[in-house]
């Protein structure tokens, strides 16, 4: 740690965010490596260090002798202020070296509201914001993560994006950069070659033209770049690289445990859920591999909890064999197993019993909508009886607090759908009081959290408008007055945040100006309520002469060129249109193990999809 840093650390909150030196962090001799990679998470240390992907890729790069990967997080505003005052540029935690000393700077982009933090970090590093103004080959600025499925709003700031899964493409990219650095290539020469790697998108090699009405006319590839960019997927999760240790933060982070992904993709096809389509096709990891890797990670980290993660844990076909395998060693080693993302419909009592070693935090379900019709529209194949049945089992199992997630402003939603949310919550309360053997002397609490629907790319709702701000406000009010039960609490997400998400999720390249303007006027950490400045954002749109409503609240036609049409995430447009039409008729689609819906994602995986191969119906 240098002296300048040592002087400011005692003055900031949680200085251990900025020191590095955590267990299992990797320090190499910088003169012995060819490529130095600064892996940036554009949010706080606590959020970033809870993210599994960054830890896997960190270890993967550091497993190479010729490269050194370090971590960088967005400094909290108190630290940023001190850094700017003392002329300390943004530095990486392992070496303390400024970002400008690196060959590659990679941002993982998890959500739309971190775009200003990306700019702020580039600026703190003393680098030009726009890719075109960074003329040297290095530092190369790259981006990955789910939000690069539509990178257009921030495409002007990055040199390339890596749509899809990073395990393989990261190494290929490092190989290529190493080669071109040695050859002394220009950035343009390098980018033309990089665009040939499957799973690499170089925005500067695509020209975007617009129609008079502001919609995209065409996106044209040039200099040999592919017309559409295919995302990368890992075919076999059992053999793909997996770390045998993880960094253990000094300070408490959001997910402070071993997190383990048990499968990728989702069989459900809820029509609003971007992750459910983005991560297809389905690929499962075997119980043997999961158990072995978890045990190894527990050994090297000293954590006392394993969390099995996926989009819908109970859809893992071998959940019970997996739990049996895990319990063999977790019980003697006093390790807890956490199983989030359980679905309402197959939340079974025997499963709860197997997991008695799990801490009993509150129980959460996501019915998403209050009426069956509305749930059919969004293809959330859960019935009211199932919700009540699950609640009953949960109450019998000793839980007294239930959290229910809903969305407001879904396509075709009516006032009745909104009022029924309160009624549904009320019926869950009744289930509790009708139980003969309910927990004695305890009340029940049903918390409903209602977010605002955000239409996202690569979902059947990608053409749908988001309900106007006034419309959302009215529905929130309606839901509030519909609730007559004291046992039911209703909370809402900040709707302005959802509005901005809707703008940027489906935005085009012209929005880069808006992001820059908002950042110049003080926006950062937009995902944090205490830092979110909605008026500054609205002013930025005005200054740039762009209407946010054009992006958020407009119905798009199936024939309109969408800003992300040149990205191929596997799921085909025909499939999304089919699903969109079925939604309009409130028709459901069976889940993938009942019947393959022909989404097209298997094609990107050599024609394979585990949901089809393992014909085990749950």
């Amino acid at each position, binding site marked *: *740690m240098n002296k300048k840093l*040592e*002087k400011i*650390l*005692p003055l900031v909150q*949680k*200085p*251990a965010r900025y*020191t*590095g*030196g*955590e*267990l299992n962090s990797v320090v190499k001799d910088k003169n012995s490596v060819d490529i130095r990679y600064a892996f940036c998470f554009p949010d706080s240390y606590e959020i970033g260090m809870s993210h599994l992907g960054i830890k896997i890729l960190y270890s993967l790069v550091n497993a190479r002798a010729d490269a050194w990967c370090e971590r960088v997080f967005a400094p909290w505003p108190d630290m940023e202020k001190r850094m700017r005052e003392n002329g300390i540029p943004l530095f990486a935690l392992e070496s303390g070296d400024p970002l400008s000393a690196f060959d590659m700077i990679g941002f993982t982009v998890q959500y739309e509201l971190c775009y200003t933090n990306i700019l702020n970090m580039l600026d703190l590093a003393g680098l030009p914001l726009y890719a075109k103004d960074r003329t040297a080959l290095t530092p190369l600025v790259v981006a990955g993560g789910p939000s690069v499925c539509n990178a257009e709003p921030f495409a002007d700031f990055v040199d390339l994006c890596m749509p899809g899964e990073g395990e393989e493409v990261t190494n290929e990219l490092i190989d290529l950069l190493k080669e071109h650095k040695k050859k002394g290539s220009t950035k343009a020469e390098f980018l033309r070659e990089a665009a040939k790697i499957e799973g690499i998108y170089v925005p500067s090699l695509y020209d975007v033209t617009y129609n008079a009405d502001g919609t995209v006319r065409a996106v044209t590839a040039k200099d040999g770049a592919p017309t559409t960019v295919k995302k990368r997927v890992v075919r076999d999760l059992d053999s793909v690289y997996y770390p045998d240790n993880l960094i*253990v933060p*000094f*300070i*408490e982070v959001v997910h*402070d445990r071993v997190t383990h992904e048990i499968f990728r993709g989702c069989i459900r096809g809820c029509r609003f859920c971007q992750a459910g389509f983005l991560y297809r096709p389905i690929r499962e990891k075997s119980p043997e591999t999961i158990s072995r890797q978890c045990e190894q990670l527990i*050994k*090297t*980290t*000293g*954590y*006392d909890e394993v969390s099995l993660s996926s989009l819908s844990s109970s859809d893992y076909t071998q959940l019970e064999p997996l739990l049996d395998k895990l319990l063999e060693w977790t019980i003697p080693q*006093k390790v807890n197993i956490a199983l989030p993302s359980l679905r309402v419909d197959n939340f079974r009592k025997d499963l709860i019993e197997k997991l008695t070693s799990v*801490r009993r935090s509150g129980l959460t379900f996501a019915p998403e909508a209050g009426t069956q019709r509305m749930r059919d529209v969004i293809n959330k194949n859960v019935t009211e009886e199932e919700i009540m049945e699950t609640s009953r089992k949960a109450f019998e199992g000793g839980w007294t607090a239930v959290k229910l997630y809903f969305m407001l402003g879904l396509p075709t939603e009516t006032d009745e759908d909104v009022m029924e949310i309160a009624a549904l919550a009320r019926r869950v309360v009744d289930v509790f009081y009708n139980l003969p053997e309910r927990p004695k002397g305890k009340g029940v609490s049903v918390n409903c959290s209602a977010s605002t629907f955000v239409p996202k790319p690569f979902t059947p709702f990608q053409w749908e408008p988001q309900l106007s701000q006034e419309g959302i406000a009215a529905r929130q009010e309606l839901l509030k007055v519909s609730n007559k039960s004291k046992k039911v609490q209703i909370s809402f997400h900040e709707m302005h945040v959802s509005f901005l998400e809707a703008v940027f999720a489906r935005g085009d390249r012209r929005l880069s100006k808006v992001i820059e303007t908002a950042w110049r006027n003080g926006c950062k950490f937009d995902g944090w309520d205490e830092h979110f400045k909605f008026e500054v954002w609205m002013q930025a749109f005005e200054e740039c002469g762009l209407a946010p409503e054009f992006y958020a609240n407009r119905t798009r036609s199936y024939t309109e060129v969408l800003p992300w049409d040149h990205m191929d995430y596997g799921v085909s447009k025909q499939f999304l249109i089919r699903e969109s039409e079925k939604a309009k008729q409130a028709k459901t689609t069976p889940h993938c193990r009942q019947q393959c819906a022909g989404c097209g994602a298997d094609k990107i995986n050599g024609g394979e999809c585990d949901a089809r191969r393992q014909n085990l119906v749950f």
Partner: protein
Amino acid sequence: MRDVRIWFSKSGAVKYVSHLDMFRLMTRAVRRADIPLWYTEGYNPHPYISFLQPLPLGVETCYEPLDIRIEGEIKNEEIKDRLNAVMPDGMHIVAVTQAFCKPAEAAYGEYKIVLDAQDIAADDIEKIIQDGALTVEKSAKVKGRKGTKTVDVSAAIHSYSVKTEGDTVVIEVTLPASPELTLNPLQFLESISNKYGTTLYPLSACRIRLLCADMTAFS
């Protein structure tokens, strides 16, 4: 079942780890080292690990006690070796002993504070301490509301020495570190800064050891 006292040192990045986070850090280290811990009975068993004296953020330590309760046969020397094999950089187990003193017997801390000689001269420090009336701001409830009050700490300084070493100034000072009264080295430095008129940043601050009321080593 027996209690053992683990004596550790910490320097580098680890000095910024808070008291609460140290607890989690040591719990995980003990698990990695596979030391046979004693666990509480019941639904959510947990081990017994107890730190005796909190240290402020940024202060290093040479010899700091921590108690754990273990079960089964394991020699002190082996506990030490196994722990040292799994410690993060900057943390080192210096010794493992029986817990002789009761935690409440700790009364003083001996500290070494190193300053940049360009920031302040040894004579200035000497003079400031001699003049007395050293004060710090402590958070306190003022009429039920959160606020601060100015506390005179001159009397709390048990003994000290100041000398110049090369381009640094070294202060060795013994300050109270008991549950009733604690003055940590950063507060001590703050009290000097307050009179000196500029904020002094230590190059390093380290607790050398803890002492009992009769000035014998806490063991």
